[in-house]
């Protein structure tokens, strides 16, 4: 290898393949289509020894002959005095052959037959000895889990798990309430800069996706409503349908679902990662409450942003419905707006904002709870983020149902 400089080559380096390896080293070779195939055969000698002949090239990634022939010999009733190996025709090998030899040795030892390794290359014999140097620790195996538990066992295990989850969730909410109490007394400890960053991430940076989803949602509602309303010649009421649906329920609900996937997952991942890197441990040993420092600003951020995002989502939904109404249904923009304003009341709007606020708190709790309960591996952090989204959405939908019931009973 060299390079041209000013008309002559400058020698930089020469790389040569390694010299041929000794029998004590594990030869390394590339698999080639001309490598002799792996071969196993067995024969009995006059002095009652079972010789296992291994030939060809043995490499991980190639196909290995099964142990069948060796097993049949050992199970045939004839008990050899020893099992030995003939590797005269063994070509290049890697640790692939080790597995075969170890299995053969185990078969022999299980039958009380001595294994003679003198026929193996030194490197192979040493590797086998190393693998067998430490006896298997009997109690190191994890308890075998029942792959097919009885259904009552499963129900019981699930009930216990749910009870524990419920308890820890309740405890978390209780600690959050205490943290809010400290906040009201001016004794909660968190950084203002963290709060504003979270407000920015949860609020402003969510505007594009809220715009897209709610605009399309409004348009979809308008289309679906128009199909039925056209039969009565009442397409103008599309404006009422979209306005009331968005402002009362759908704006808050869909914005919350977006935020569960966005902010809820982010909170879980942030706190889970902090667990992995012991940042939360560092806070605890400094007696800085995790609840105040990490969870509270996240809850406050969504508490502040969700009402605003809900109103914004409502507006985008009405705009989307208006787009369909004007462009597809021939309703004039002014008529659409007046109709919407007549249909949507302050009660609807306030109700929607209250729902959005509650959903925001639920999303923050779900995200932070999963984060602080996360395990200490990277996959655990991913699991926590997933669970945060699922828990957030389930709690939002449950709350939505409860709100529907309560508002119905209140006649709202």
């Amino acid at each position, binding site marked *: 290898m060299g390079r041209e400089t000013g008309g002559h080559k400058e020698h930089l380096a020469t790389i040569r393949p390694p010299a041929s390896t000794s029998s004590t080293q594990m030869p390394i070779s590339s698999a080639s289509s001309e490598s002799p195939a792996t071969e196993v055969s067995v024969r009995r000698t006059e002095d009652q020894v079972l010789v296992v002949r291994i030939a060809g090239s043995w490499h991980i990634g190639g196909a290995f002959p099964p142990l069948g022939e060796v097993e049949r010999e050992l199970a045939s009733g004839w008990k050899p005095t020893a099992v030995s190996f003939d590797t005269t025709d063994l070509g290049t090998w890697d640790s692939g052959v080790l597995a075969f030899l170890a299995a053969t040795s185990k078969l022999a030892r299980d039958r009380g037959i001595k294994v003679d390794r003198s026929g193996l290359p030194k490197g192979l014999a040493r590797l086998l000895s*190393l693998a067998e*140097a*430490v*006896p298997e*620790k009997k109690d190191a195996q994890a308890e075998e889990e029942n792959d097919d538990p009885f259904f009552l066992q499963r129900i019981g295990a699930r009930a216990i798990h749910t009870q524990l989850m419920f308890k820890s969730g309740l405890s978390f909410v209780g600690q959050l309430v205490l943290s809010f109490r400290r906040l009201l007394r001016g004794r909660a*400890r968190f950084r203002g800069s*963290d709060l504003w*960053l979270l407000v920015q991430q949860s609020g402003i940076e969510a505007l594009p996706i809220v715009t897209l989803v709610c605009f399309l949602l409004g348009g979809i509602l308008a289309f679906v409503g128009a199909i039925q309303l056209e039969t009565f010649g009442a397409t103008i009421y599309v404006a009422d349908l979209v306005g009331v649906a968005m402002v009362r329920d759908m704006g808050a609900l869909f914005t919350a679902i977006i935020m569960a996937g966005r902010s809820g997952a982010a909170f879980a991942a942030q706190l889970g990662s*902090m667990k992995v*890197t*012991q*940042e939360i*441990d*560092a*806070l*605890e*040993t*400094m*007696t*800085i409450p995790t609840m105040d420092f990490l969870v509270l600003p996240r809850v406050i951020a969504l508490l502040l942003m969700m009402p605003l995002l809900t109103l914004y989502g409502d507006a985008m939904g009405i705009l989307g419905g208006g787009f369909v109404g004007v462009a597809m249904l021939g309703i004039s923009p002014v008529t659409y707006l007046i109709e919407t304003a007549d249909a949507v009341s302050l009660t609807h709007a306030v109700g929607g904002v209250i729902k959005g606020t509650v959903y925001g708190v639920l999303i923050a709790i779900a995200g932070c709870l999963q984060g602080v309960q996360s395990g200490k591996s990277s996959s655990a952090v991913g699991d926590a983020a997933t669970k945060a989204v699922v828990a957030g959405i389930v709690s939002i939908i449950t709350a939505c149902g409860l709100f529907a019931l309560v508002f119905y009973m209140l006649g709202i």
Partner: protein
Amino acid sequence: MAYGDFVLQHDLNFTIETGDIFVIMGGSGCGKSTLLRHMIGLNEPAKGEVLYGLESFTKAPLHRRAAMLRKVGVLYQSGALWSSMTLAENVALPLEEFTTLARDEIAEVARLKLALVGLAGFEHYYPADISGGMQKRAGLARAMALDPDILFFDEPGAGLDPISSRLLDDLILELRDSLGATIVVVTHELASIFAIATRVIMLDREKKGILATGTPQELRDRPPHEFVRRFFHRVGSAAEVHR
């Protein structure tokens, strides 16, 4: 010490004297870091207690435990710096929380602490911007922020090159001499143990207790157990790896 039904250690009884550099050592998985976590309140002992002086840390009410922990600094294995804060902010946070110093005074103290560990000029760097060794030093600066009486180090030399490890050892000795701190180190690096330790205990996973105690020189020259001899003379077999 236990994780659920799995008992890690059940026979630990030792005292750390003021001014000691006390090293907790042992094979992998014997519970060294877990013991440290018990001593700083991150884990609760299944039985027994941790005493700070004559006062029980384990049984103390929360506010009392918090007060005791303010006299403690911890350097975690990976530094555990808060990734959203600069190095200066990391060091400043405990000062903001637990002192009445003015903002500019806190900034000056933080700068000084970072300079003590050789990170002058790096105040505005974030943890992700610096090397692992520098993160450890920054973590040490944070652990020292409130001039603690006791400093805990969890595998301080892990991942460091020999020179950086030696520099950290020198820093530990300096902290003991200049601050009068009592230092507890979890490590199994022999070079560091001989450089800094005044007393050592060796935990054993099989025995689930203390296998040996003494100065590093005593354990090396008069090992009370074969495993201790092998540990100090770096003589091992595959079987010993799993002890």
